[in-house]
């Protein structure tokens, strides 16, 4: 069964550094998402992306964050200047088309900011 793949599985970075988290959604999917889960807290929506533009974003998704689909397969989340509180598990997700189609999640990237 096709999967959403995320790389790396674990990223350690220093505060203030830029980090790019990578995702390869399922190939025929059209809607893409990033969620994050701070340790011990809820899974939180960050952003949704459709037709090469952001369709919705949360208050968490401020100017430090950006998303891009640089080619036909990758979907990236960039954090420009990481803060300690950005440490979390970041999940990429995709779905094929309408809201009725299931959301498929990747295994996540654990980001540790030191």
């Amino acid at each position: 069964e096709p999967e959403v793949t995320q790389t790396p599985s674990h990223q350690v970075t220093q505060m203030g550094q830029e980090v790019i988290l990578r995702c390869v959604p399922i190939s025929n999917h059209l809607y893409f998402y990033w969620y994050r889960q701070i340790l011990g807290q809820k899974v939180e929506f960050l952003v949704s992306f459709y037709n090469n533009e952001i369709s919705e974003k949360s208050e968490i998704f401020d100017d430090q964050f950006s998303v891009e689909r640089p080619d036909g397969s990758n979907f990236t989340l960039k954090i420009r200047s990481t803060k300690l509180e950005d440490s979390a598990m970041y999940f990429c997700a995709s779905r094929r088309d309408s809201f009725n189609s299931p959301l498929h999640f990747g295994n996540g990237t654990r980001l540790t900011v030191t």
Partner: protein
Amino acid sequence: AQSVTQPDIHITVSEGASLELRCNYSYGATPYLFWYVQSPGQGLQLLLKYFSGDTLVQGIKGFEAEFKRSQSSFNLRKPSVHWSDAAEYFCAVGSGGSEKLVFGKGTKLTVNP
């Protein structure tokens, strides 16, 4: 604003016992409701969903959930738990007007042999 409450942080059951995981939501209109499972080191896997129609929905791995509007609940059940069901379970709510899902904090399930 939408919200989801999973009152039980951690539940322990014996293998073969029945299971019910509680989920309460807050949303003004008819919600879209989901249960996801996360095994260690894995992503979130959809167990089942409710959009409309029959309030008792069947999912994968023998799970079912019942939507009760009067109680704003969407509890997950399984009649006989297997050791492989040990994982963390997340309830989530969505709506037709938004792309996002709002998740609960999760319930960690431990299964004793």
